């Protein structure tokens, strides 16, 4: 069943929803990266929660006009308008008052959502509102979606991906260097607005699939995952798009394969699983590589300190140091250096002396800042500089 769903063999509507979800995931991953780099990831949370009153009011308005209150295009249009108002409110609070952005986000999010709930309870008491099914917008529900709605979502997905592609360059520039972007003649506030408009479009398209509470996950989790894997913006953007698309694909397919498996949570949890795996296995920022790096460093420091003790004929008491020296064949179990150990110890001792001089010499100040008890001075200074330092080390006692 899951395989059928992954390969788009579960009927026309399920396929359309899955395709729409994948496109949405890609667009959200990419756009989310720019938000993330601008450190404004949670603005999307305010935008998403602010859709609720719009959905409710659109339902009431359409019903009052004698139309079908559940018509998806109308509900989505309503959600877009109120989300835009919410965004304006965040901007207004940040610009007009001394409140910080996180307080403004929290205020808008909670107040719009509260107001939305008031509207929903009004709808429940309307004669036509009994089974409005608007709760589906909270947590997303793709079950029993009609063909027109599924195609609307797929088309919406295509449009947001295209828009993200068109605006990728200015958004990258702004994310990294707002000042430079300004000198290139870009209006940073305009690009910010475009970015937010994209977030809004993604929220509206995703409303029916993942629901307004979890849509923010699609914008944040893939970009945070991608950030763990690379420091280069172009790769982070591509990876985030890929992670977003993959999460949406797997989540939507698994959800279509059985009842009782809501789409939104599955997409979010797939995205989180990718994130958790990356936390462990990512090359530079992952926990495992971090642990290995720490071990390597610890080893290096112990061996170096052990060698310095050997060079000075001091006994070694630290068991880890002794074990490491033994493993490297530098010392015997009783702590007496081997032939190789004596040579390495002498070199380490000499290097330490060179550092001592370099660190006491103002002209080597920059190089001296790189002293960490591990790096050899030869890796930092040129051979001429080394020769000059060697000449200053008093009588050649290195041979001892």
């Amino acid at each position, binding site marked *: 069943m899951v395989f059928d769903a992954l390969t788009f063999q579960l009927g026309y509507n399920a396929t359309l929803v899955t395709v729409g979800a994948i496109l949405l995931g890609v667009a959200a991953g990419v756009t989310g990266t720019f938000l*993330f780099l601008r*450190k404004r*990831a*949670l603005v999307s*949370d305010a935008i998403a929660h602010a859709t609720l009153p719009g959905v409710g009011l659109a339902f009431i308005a359409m019903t009052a006009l004698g139309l079908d209150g559940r018509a998806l295009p109308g509900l989505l249009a309503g959600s877009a308008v109120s989300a835009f108002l919410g965004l304006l409110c965040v901007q*207004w*609070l940040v610009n*007009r*008052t*001394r*409140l*910080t952005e*996180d*307080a403004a*986000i*929290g*205020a808008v*999010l*909670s*107040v*719009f*959502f*509260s*107001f*939305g*709930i*008031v509207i*929903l*309870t*009004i709808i429940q*008491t309307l004669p036509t509102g009994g089974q409005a099914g608007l*709760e589906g917008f*909270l*947590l997303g529900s793709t079950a029993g979606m009609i063909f027109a709605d599924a195609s609307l979502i797929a088309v919406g997905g295509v449009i947001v991906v295209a828009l993200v592609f068109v605006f990728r360059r200015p958004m990258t520039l702004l994310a990294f260097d707002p000042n430079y972007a300004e000198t290139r003649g870009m209006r940073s506030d305009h690009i910010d607005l475009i970015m937010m408009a994209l977030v809004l479009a993604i929220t509206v398209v995703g409303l029916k699939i993942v629901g307004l*509470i*979890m849509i*923010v*996950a699609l*914008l*944040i*989790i893939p*970009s*945070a995952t991608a*950030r*763990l894997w690379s420091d280069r913006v172009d790769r982070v953007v591509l990876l985030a798009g890929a992670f977003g698309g993959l999460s949406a694909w797997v989540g939507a397919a698994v959800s279509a394969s059985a009842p*009782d*498996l*809501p789409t*939104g*949570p*599955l997409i*979010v*949890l797939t*995205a*989180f699983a990718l*994130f958790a795996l990356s*936390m462990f296995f990512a090359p530079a*920022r992952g*926990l495992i590589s*971090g642990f290995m790096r720490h071990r390597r460093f610890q080893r290096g420091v112990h061996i170096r300190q052990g060698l310095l003790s050997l060079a000075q004929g001091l006994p070694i008491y630290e068991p880890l140091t002794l074990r490491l020296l033994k493993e490297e064949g530098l010392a015997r179990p009783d702590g007496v250096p081997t032939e190789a150990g004596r040579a390495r110890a002498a070199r380490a001792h000499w290097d330490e002396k060179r550092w001592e001089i370099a660190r006491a010499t103002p002209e080597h100040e920059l190089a001296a800042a790189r002293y960490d008890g591990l790096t050899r001075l030869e890796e930092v200074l040129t051979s001429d500089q080394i020769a000059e330092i060697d000449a200053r080390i008093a009588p050649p006692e290195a041979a001892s």
Partner: protein
Amino acid sequence: MTGAEFVPFSLVPMLVGVLAAIACALPGNFLVLRRQALIGDAISHVVLPGIVVAFVVTGTIATWPMLIGSAVAALVAVALIEGISRFGRIEPGAAMGVTFTAMFAGGVLLLEQSDTSGVHLDVEHALFGNLESLIWLDATGWASLIDPAALSGLPEELIRISVVALVMALLLLLFWRPLALSTFDENFASTVGLPVRAIALGLVIAAAIAAVTAFDAVGSIIVIAMFICPPAAARLMTNRLGMQVVWSVAFATVSAVVGFVLAGYGPLWFGLENAVSAAGMIGTVSGVILVLAATFGPTRK
């Protein structure tokens, strides 16, 4: 309206609303000043998986397992946020977004999977609360307030939230100086020997306790609104921290009372027959207060 009507049906929900609002607004003052306003948002989202797991483990919807489950979930969330932002070197806002959405999604999925039919446990209830259902059946009128027999029938939500509101106020008085100092100048606070990390963690835990207890009575949406809106509005009224806390308590109280009254009686004025969600209305009123403060507040800039 007479006491015979007001006391049993409106007094308790109104009091619970006011106390929940105050219990959240008190720590909210410091969260807003520390730019951690969204911690409240994150905590109230992860309460859902907490109560669902507690339900799956114990098989009942008794109060204490739910409270413990959601408190544990809040602590797990705080630890995850800290861990992700520290070890993954990811901006705290994004780490928060990753954590609470994933935990919330887990809660929703678990809820759909587990057999909760026949039990009153659903997402809407968790979000909106059921303030209106906290009626005091033993009360007959104002006289019941001094009648021990009737008092013993008070809904326990009221007792719990009173205790928590009181504890929040006491903690605030007790730790006022270290809290204020570490909020405004963390570096200075740590140079004079204050345990700034412990204070920050303590604040988050206090907020979590307030959120979890209030959530039990009024739903998560008021919790988020009350963490942020009254303190934010209060911040636009004064430059002094003490006054800010006083303003925030006043705003929280007004939001809860006016919101409750509007939700219960407002629709009648418009010719509608049924009341609207009190939780939603309280949040909405707190937003209106914030807008007013942002427009006219003396220290809004």
